[in-house]
């Protein structure tokens, strides 16, 4: 036993899979200890905030300001508003307006902006221009306002008595603040989702729930598969015939059909994560049954089993002492695969709208479902779906690697 475990941990495939899996598991366990926020708490007003560090503007304005004289500051400021694409767009508008091409130098920022300011008119819509495009130019125009100014921004407060604005300070273009000194900074490494929830916190919580679903589904499927497989293989005869009849039946009838029917019949309100896991478990035992049965049949007439029978041991005793130890490795491998396919099944169901009820807990499938419904993939909000796919792929990849590693340890013939 000790030797086998040592050998398992010497298999590179198992080790890689195990490390990935343990990493994911540890993150799921320890992350909530550091970030105590509710995973489903809506913090963002609006959808899909980009990943980044969010600094409270009010606190920023009021925090200590430092002056740094950096030469490229103005250049960077302009570049952030006026990239190559914007310059080309401006050229396009100006050409349509009738400015001769030779008068437009898109790389001379000052002249370009001057030309623009002198000619641009929000109300003009050229033939063939969509209204979306017209609005875009409007937004571009707004963002250009004051771009070349070298003045600071004046802060003003309303005088309670007179109702007039009084200047309270000025923010120069050379003013900086130290992020560490701002009272309210929120890091959103993966931005927010369509509801304005912190993606990372939600993702970690969803991974935990999905692993739990996989674990419950896998345990149920393995227990059923093991029991039926043992009965069919060891007892044989009509018991075997009946069990194999149902096993073959459920091999052919696609489990997705059963999942859809059962999930729908349960109804969304009753569909918690555990219920979904149980349903998945009850529809995915066929392969384990087949595998266990085949193993048991090959063991049934071995000498040590016969000896045990002759010694008058009960069926239960024989199964526990003479059969189970020999098929334990297969059962463990089947269990691992069941967990990962359980996670995938939940994800598939959720995308079809049949996942756990949405208000309770996030799952990887639900997150995917939300991202798809809100078209995150089409709008280029990669942080809303890509990390979810990566986590699903990593979980199932790590489980498969562990399984292959175990397989090679237990079946030396498969080694190359």
């Amino acid at each position, binding site marked *: 036993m000790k030797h086998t475990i040592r050998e398992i941990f010497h298999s590179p495939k198992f080790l890689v899979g195990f490390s990935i899996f343990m990493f994911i598991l540890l993150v799921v366990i320890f992350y909530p200890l550091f970030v105590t926020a509710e995973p489903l708490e809506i913090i963002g007003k609006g959808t899909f905030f980009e990943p980044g560090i969010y600094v409270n503007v009010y606190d920023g304005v009021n925090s200590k300001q430092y002056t740094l004289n950096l030469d490229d500051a103005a250049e960077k400021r302009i570049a952030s508003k006026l990239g190559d694409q914007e310059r080309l767009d401006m050229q396009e508008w100006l050409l349509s307006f009738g400015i001769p091409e030779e008068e437009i130098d898109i790389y001379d920022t000052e002249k370009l902006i001057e030309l623009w300011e002198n000619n641009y008119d929000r109300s003009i819509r050229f033939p063939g221009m969509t209204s979306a495009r017209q609005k875009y130019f409007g937004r571009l125009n707004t963002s250009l306002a004051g771009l070349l100014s070298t003045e600071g921004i004046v802060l003003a407060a309303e005088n309670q008595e007179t109702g007039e604005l009084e200047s309270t300070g000025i923010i120069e273009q050379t003013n900086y603040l130290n992020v560490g000194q701002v009272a309210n900074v929120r890091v959103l490494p993966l931005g927010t989702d369509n509801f304005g929830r912190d993606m990372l916190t939600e993702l970690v919580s969803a991974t935990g729930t999905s692993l739990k679903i996989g674990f419950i589904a896998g345990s149920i499927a393995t227990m059923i598969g093991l029991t039926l497989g043992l009965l069919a293989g060891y007892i044989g005869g009509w018991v075997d015939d009946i069990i194999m009849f149902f096993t073959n039946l459920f091999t052919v009838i*696609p489990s*997705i*059909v059963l999942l859809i*029917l059962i999930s729908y019949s349960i109804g969304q309100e009753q569909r918690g994560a555990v219920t979904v896991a149980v349903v998945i478990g009850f529809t995915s035992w066929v392969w384990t049954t087949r595998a266990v049965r085949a193993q048991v049949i090959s063991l049934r007439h071995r000498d040590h089993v016969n000896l045990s029978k002759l010694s008058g041991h009960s069926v239960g005793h024989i199964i526990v002492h003479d059969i189970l130890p020999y098929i334990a490795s297969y059962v463990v491998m089947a269990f691992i695969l069941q967990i990962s396919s359980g996670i995938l099944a939940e994800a598939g169901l959720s995308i*079809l709208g049949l996942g756990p009820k949405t208000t309770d807990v996030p799952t990887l499938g639900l997150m995917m479902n939300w991202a798809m419904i809100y078209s995150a993939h089409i709008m280029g909000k990669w942080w809303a779906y890509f990390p979810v796919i990566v986590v699903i792929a990593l979980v199932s990849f790590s489980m498969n690697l562990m399984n292959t590693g175990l397989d090679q340890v237990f079946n030396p013939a498969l080694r190359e």
Partner: protein
Amino acid sequence: MKGYVKYFSGKLVWFLITLVAAFVLNFVLPRLMPGDPVAIITQRTVQGMASQAGIQKVYQQYAELFGTNKPIHEQFIIYIQNILKGDFGLSFSQYPRPVADILKSSIWWTVALQFPAIILGWLIGNTLGALAAYLKKGFDKVIMPVSIFISNLPAFGMAVVLLVIFGVKLAWFPTSGGYGFDMIPNLSWGFIWSVIVHYQLPFWSIVLIAIGGQAIGMRSMAIYELNADYVKYSRFLGIKDRTTIKYVFRNAMLPQITGLALSIGTMIGGALVAEVIFSYPGLGSTILTAVMGQDYPLISAVTLIIALMVLSATFLIEILYGFIDPRIKAAQTD
């Protein structure tokens, strides 16, 4: 000949048994809910419906469809009779459109998308797996890790990745629908072209998913066969490696065909989810709308159709297998 007849009739009987089981499950599962199924279904279906008369009408229709006032076996007969007549009741999310009508317009999209994709993915996957097993070095080192990774990507993951790369970033293909949203189905070239263009991303995402799993399976089958005794014997009789390889791949292919028969249900399940990602107008999207619209008759009909599709596909593959594998004939004559 006798062997074939025995094999085929065995398969046919099994096909009929599974068919009946599919009908029974479709009939029984919703009735396992506690309470009056018609009341529950009605209640769920009419959420948001204000008029009491409307709700009553829905209840009536269900009661009639299911014949709930009759004993259970009569209900089953009514159910079978209705289905055989092609009567799946009326849809609730698209009332008063008949369910059969909705199915008619979506099933062909799914059939035309999924079966060619699964077959192509199977062929490419097997070829790559065989090459990986035969060439071993290099090729094996590249194809295998890629295949393993791809096969671990869920079907919808592959769909999203393709969609983002080729649909959004490169904008080579449209991202959703079965044809241009501004078009009405007709037989013009413009429409056909639109269908072809919309077909590409869903098609290739299903193909790619199928390739990964098949390549891995084929590789282990081929490695197993390459070490078989007959390979050694053939070589020692001076037969060219090229001929021996033909034996190996043919023999490794056969279990892959039965493997396809066993896994086609899972593959179609994954492909349905991929359809949803692309808003492809097939059965996958129909399920989603049915679920969203609490449309019970539609869900029941779609699951039945999917079960029929999978069962028929499995049956066809097994029939085909009977012709291809000579051992079938021999084994049955004993």
